[in-house]
């Protein structure tokens, strides 16, 4: 149940329909023309925004306000060259700064926490002390009651309207951010909305490959590329152990050399670990670092089969062993859990035979010992 952001376009589509608010919006990419915009909205003033879940857009120049289709077209084109790919265009709503209010809802353990301020807008953080749970405006009160129902119905985790404008008794959701619980994406009421979670960060092709693999497997497979030319490459297992191991690299002063973070857990199949390892090795081999280490490590597993998961890892290493050897990559291993003896013996034999052996430790070694040994090699190099 991680929280994922949905596009403002999708969020507004859901909310304006449920709240029965008038709204027109267009989701566009770099191919949009001024004529299409004009045809859709008619002769009105418009707003264009980068719509990729990025916070504080106005301050970063990712919003173009009160402009004509021609100007918006140039804005979209210019921002597309800065690697942004998804935009929202909607009518401009004339209002004054003192009409801008702030409203947010967040799911907490015992319900939904509501925060409100009659003074919203882009400078909200400068007067955060005015934000609290008291709402006196009857229109906003009514809105919150309706929002709570929608919030539960669609498994929302977080919702922020800033600014919220109430003008002549009419509600306008000028800027809307919604996070949804990804554990609910397969529940019909949510899946019917055909929501695609968006990531504010552009994924690399390897990250995309692993995200796809993660989606198709009941096990968990995560991967983030931090430094494509890093020295310390990680093939980790366990949500907790992977964090502890990555921390240790940074604690030893090699944070800048940390190439990636990731983890596999939940007893993946041999095919899963094979495909996962293959992606990491492709990135590793591309790194321009002169001395690379691969750390294959994890805690003492409760139920993930070490022998089975390692067979997949070894298969991918086997396919790349010449290239790894050529680059003098050394492999450092630490793992425990079901069938650890067999899994570690297989790994040790393979690494020794192929000249990639750094070390192989079992559960009698402290988890992070393997990091100490791996960075020692890098220290020598410096």
């Amino acid at each position, binding site marked *: *149940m*991680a*929280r994922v952001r949905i596009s403002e376009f999708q969020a507004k589509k859901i909310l304006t329909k449920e709240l029965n608010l008038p709204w027109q919006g267009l989701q566009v990419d770099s191919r949009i023309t001024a004529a299409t915009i004009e045809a859709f909205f008619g002769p009105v003033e418009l707003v264009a925004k980068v719509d990729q879940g990025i916070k504080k857009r106005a301050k970063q120049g990712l919003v173009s306000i009160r402009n004509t289709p021609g100007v918006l077209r140039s804005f979209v084109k210019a921002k597309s060259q800065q690697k942004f790919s998804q935009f929202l265009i909607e009518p401009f709503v004339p209002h004054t700064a003192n009409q801008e209010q702030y409203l947010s809802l967040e*799911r*907490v*353990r*015992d*319900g939904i926490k509501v925060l409100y301020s009659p003074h919203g807008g882009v400078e909200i953080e400068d007067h955060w002390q005015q934000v609290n749970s008291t709402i006196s405006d009857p229109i906003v009160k009514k809105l919150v009651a309706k929002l709570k129902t929608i919030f*539960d119905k669609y*498994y929302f*985790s977080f919702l922020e309207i800033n600014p919220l404008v109430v003008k002549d008794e009419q509600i306008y959701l000028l800027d809307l951010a919604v996070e949804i*619980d*990804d*554990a*609910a994406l*397969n*529940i019909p009421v949510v899946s019917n909305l055909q929501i695609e979670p968006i990531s*504010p*960060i552009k994924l690399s092709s390897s990250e995309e490959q692993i995200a796809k693999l993660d989606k198709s497997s009941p096990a*968990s497979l*995560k991967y*983030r590329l*931090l430094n494509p030319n890093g020295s310390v490459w990680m093939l980790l*297992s*366990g*949500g*907790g*152990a*992977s*964090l*502890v191991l*990555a*921390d*240790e690299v*940074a*604690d030893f002063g090699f*944070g*800048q050399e*940390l190439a990636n*973070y990731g*983890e596999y*857990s*939940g007893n993946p199949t041999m095919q899963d670990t094979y495909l996962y390892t293959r992606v990491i090795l492709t990135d590793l081999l591309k790194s321009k670092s002169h001395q690379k280490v691969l750390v294959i490590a*994890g*805690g*003492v*597993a*409760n*139920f993930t089969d070490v022998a089975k998961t390692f067979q997949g890892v070894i298969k991918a290493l086997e396919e790349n062993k010449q290239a790894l050897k050529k680059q003098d990559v050394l492999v450092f291993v630490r793992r*425990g*859990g*079901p*069938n650890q003896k067999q899994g570690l013996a297989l790994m040790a034999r393979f690494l020794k035979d192929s000249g990639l052996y750094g070390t192989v430790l079992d*559960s*009698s070694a*402290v*988890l*992070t*010992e393997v990091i*100490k040994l791996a960075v020692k090699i890098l220290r020598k190099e410096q």
Partner: protein
Amino acid sequence: MISLKQIRNTNNQIIVLGNHSPIIQSILDFDYLCGQKKPSVIGIMGNGRGKAKYFWGRQEILLTLFSQPQELQPDAKSNLWFLNLLSGRRTLTSSHDLITSVKNIVGGSLFAENVPEVHAQALSDLAQKHDLLLIGSASVGMVVPGSLKLGPIAGITPEQLINVKLSEPGTLAIISASGGMTNELINLVSQAGKNLSFAFSTGGDRFPQPEITIAFTLAENDPQTAAIIYYGELGGTEEYELIKLKQQGKLTKPVLVHISGTVADLFAQSPQFGHAKAKAETELEKASAKRQALKAAGFLVTEKFSDLLKLTKQL
């Protein structure tokens, strides 16, 4: 809510929802190794009926499969637990049905990942209403050496259970936000030459059970626990409630803490790490902030994970 003393002094029985044989077998192995007379698992609820083959020591035994909770015949004098091994989507409804149709359940453990937050809220209400010791979701469960193994915690092969001396109760408690790290800490306690009083993983989800203050109160009130080892991560603000608990004088036992996630500071925007809750949105949720606050409040906080073994030996 049930106390650890009651868990140790009374016989424990378990109803398993979902048939996950390596985990069920590991519970039977634990019972057998601890010298219990009968398996704690009294039935497996699933779609089928009939019997399922398991081992009790070297002897083959049959466990009964049930489709209706009303068919179960728990012993009224035992502590009755449930272990839910079903998927994230089915965890709430199946737990609810069982709790409302079988009397006297004292607690349960929820194994599935991907339990929706809305369901976790309902599970939290359910635990409160029925005064249950509920653990999870996304939890490997709870182990009380010599008495109860509720989940895959501490391993699923007999070698794993023997290695960490689960039949010999000790004095150190483990409370952890991560299933894998729970087992790692169980292993570390054994490396330090010590034994466990109990261990459980609350799981890495957004609203884990039991709430951190309840978890620590259980350990505080347990006469057998001398000290607590806690593993936490970036994300969430539960650790600050722990500080309050200590300041109110309700947590007097020594607590050794490791908070992971300082690596997140290398990223411009905190990424989503392995666990659902492991993401820092605010300054307070950062691992470094939690470490600092806990240290200032008098908790024993590690700088590096490799310090843990030495500090555990000193507990």
